[in-house]
C-alpha cells in the first residue's frame, strides 16, 4: 500500500473497490490487526491497530468470502458456541446471541447439521453469524458474496443492509459494482496499492457523466482490434468482459459523439452481435478510473 488514507464515519457503510491485487484485502487485514504495516498507521474506534490489537479485536467483526474458515466436521451450532467463547461473549448471553444470529442469517433449523454439508451460501451466512456473535461496533466484510448464487447473494445483501440499519459501521470490499452502488454510503477505489478516488456512488458516477458507453457483443475480437479502438481519439477507455462464447466490449467516449460506425469499422474480421449505447454506471466510472490509472 502507498499513501492510502481514508476515514469511515460511525454508522457508515463504506465500500473498498479495486481490481485483483489492488490491496483491498491487505488494507482490511491491516485494519483488523492481522498484518503489520511497514510504515504509516491506522486506528479503529480510536485504538491503534499496531500497538493496541486486543482493544481493536474486541470491538470488530471480520467476515471473509469463500468456504474456508469454519470447522467442517462439526455442526454449525458447535462452531458458533466455540467462537462465542473465543470472542468473549459472556456465558449467560451465548444462547440468546446464537439464536439471534441464526435468525438474522436464516440458518434456524439447520444449525445441528455438520458444516461440510452446507452450500457455499449457507457457509457464507454462517461466517456472518460468527463475525457478529460478539455484537461488534465495526464489521469488516471482505467479498462476502463471492461465489454465492444470485438468490443467496441477494439475501446476503439484505443482511448487510440490516447491519447498517442496526447502526453498525461496515467496511465492505466487493467486485460487484451493483452491490457497492446499492449498499454503500461512500466508496474508495484503489489500484496497485494507491487510492484513486473516494466519494458517494453518485459522486463517482458523476466523474463519467459526460461520457457515453457503447456496448458491443462480439465474437473473436483480437488484441490488435482492441488496440485500434483504444487509438481512436474520442475513445476514453475500452474494456472487455469475456463470456462463454462471446466478448462484451465496453467502449467509453465523450457524450454526444456518434462513433459507433467507426468502432464497428475497426472490428473488421470479428463477428458482431448486439450493439447498444447507454448512460454510464458506477461500473463504468470504476473501469474509467482503473483504466486511466493503468490498472
Amino acid at each position, binding site marked *: 500500500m502507498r499513501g492510502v488514507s481514508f476515514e469511515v464515519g460511525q454508522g457508515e457503510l463504506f465500500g473498498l473497490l479495486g481490481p485483483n491485487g489492488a490491496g483491498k*484485502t*491487505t488494507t482490511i*487485514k491491516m485494519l*483488523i*490487526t*492481522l*498484518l*503489520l504495516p511497514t510504515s504509516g498507521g491506522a486506528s479503529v474506534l480510536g485504538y491503534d491497530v499496531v500497538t493496541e490489537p*486486543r482493544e481493536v*479485536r*474486541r470491538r*470488530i467483526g*471480520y467476515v*471473509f468470502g*469463500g468456504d*474456508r*474458515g*469454519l*470447522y*467442517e*466436521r*462439526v455442526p454449525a451450532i*458447535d462452531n458458533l*458456541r*466455540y*467462537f462465542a*467463547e*473465543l*470472542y*468473549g461473549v459472556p*456465558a449467560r448471553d451465548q444462547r440468546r446471541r446464537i439464536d439471534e444470529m441464526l435468525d438474522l442469517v436464516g440458518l434456524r433449523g439447520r444449525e445441528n447439521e455438520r458444516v461440510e454439508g452446507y452450500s457455499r451460501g449457507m457457509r457464507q451466512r454462517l461466517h456472518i453469524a*460468527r463475525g457478529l456473535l460478539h455484537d461488534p461496533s465495526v464489521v469488516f466484510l471482505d467479498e462476502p458474496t463471492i461465489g454465492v448464487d444470485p438468490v443467496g447473494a441477494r439475501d446476503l445483501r439484505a443482511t448487510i443492509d440490516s447491519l447498517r440499519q442496526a447502526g453498525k459501521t461496515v467496511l465492505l470490499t466487493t467486485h460487484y459494482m451493483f452491490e457497492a452502488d446499492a449498499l454503500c454510503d461512500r466508496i474508495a477505489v484503489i489500484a496497485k496499492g494507491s487510492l484513486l478516488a473516494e466519494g458517494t456512488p453518485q459522486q463517482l458516477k458523476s466523474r463519467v457523466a459526460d461520457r457515453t458507453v457503447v456496448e458491443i457483443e462480439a465474437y473473436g475480437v483480437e488484441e490488435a482490434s482492441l488496440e485500434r479502438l483504444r487509438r481512436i481519439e474520442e475513445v476514453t477507455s475500452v474494456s472487455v468482459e469475456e463470456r462463454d462464447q462471446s466478448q462484451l466490449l465496453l467502449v467509453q467516449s465523450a457524450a454526444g459523439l456518434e462513433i459507433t460506425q467507426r468502432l464497428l469499422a475497426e472490428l473488421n474480421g470479428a463477428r458482431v452481435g448486439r450493439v447498444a449505447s447507454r448512460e454510464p454506471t458506477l461500473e463504468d466510472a470504476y473501469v474509467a478510473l482503473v483504466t486511466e490509472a493503468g490498472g
Partner: protein
Amino acid sequence: MSPGRTLRLLWVGWRFHLANLTQSGFFVLVSAVQPVIFATIAFYMWRSGQREGTLLAVALGAGLMGMWSSTLFGSGGAIQFQRWHGTLEVLIAAPAPFILTLLPITIATASLGLYSVAGTLAWGWLLFGMPVDIVHPGAFAVALPAAVLSLGLLGLVLASTFVLYRSASAFSNLLEYPVWLVTGLLVPVSLLPGFVEPLSWVLAPTWGVKAIRRAALGGDPWPAVGMCLLLGCIYLVVGAFTLRNFERLARAQATLSLT
C-alpha cells in the same frame, strides 16, 4: 482475563477440538488403530522373548506410543492445519490471547491418546487374557491426565516451533520412532547408550509412562507425576515465548493465510 474465564475458554476449546479431531479418519487411525497393531506385535515379542515385566506394562507403553503419535502429528501440525482450513486468521483475530486458543488444541491432540490407552488395555484383556488390575487406581486417575497435560504442553512447543519451518512435517515423521525408544515406551531406557538418558529426562512421555506404569503396577508414581507437571510448566513458558514470536513474525510477513 479472569482465571474463571480463562479456565472456561480452555475447557470449551478442549471439548470442541477433541470432538473435531475424533471426526478425522487420520487421527482415529493414529490414536486408536495404530497402537493396537503395535500392542499386538509387542505382546508377541514379550511372550516369545520371555522379557521382564508384565503384559500390562507392555500395553500401557503401546498406549503411550499412540498418545505421543497423536500429539506429535496433531500438535506439530496444529497451526498449519488451521492455516489450511482458513481458521488461523479467525483464531488470531479473536480477542482471546492466542496461547489460550492453541493450548486446548494441543491438549486435545494429546487427549486422543486416551483412546490409545483404553484401546490397548481392552485389546490385551480381550485377546491375550491380560488382567487389568490397577494397583493404585486413585494415582492412576491422576497420572493419566498428568501425562496428557504434559504431552499437550509439549505439543504447544512443537506447534509454535514447527510452524516456522517448511520441512516440519518431515521432521515430525523423524521424531516419532526415536521418541518411542528414548522415552522408554518400547524398551527400558537403561538398555540404551548412556547419553540417551539425559535426553529422556526433558521429554514428557518418559515421566508420563513412568507415572502410569507405577500407578498401575505398583511403586511410587508421585515423583514422575511431579516431573510431568514441572516439565509442563517449562513447556508452557517456552511455548508462550515462541508463540508470541510466531504471531509477531506472521503479522509482519503476512503468513497467517495461504492467500
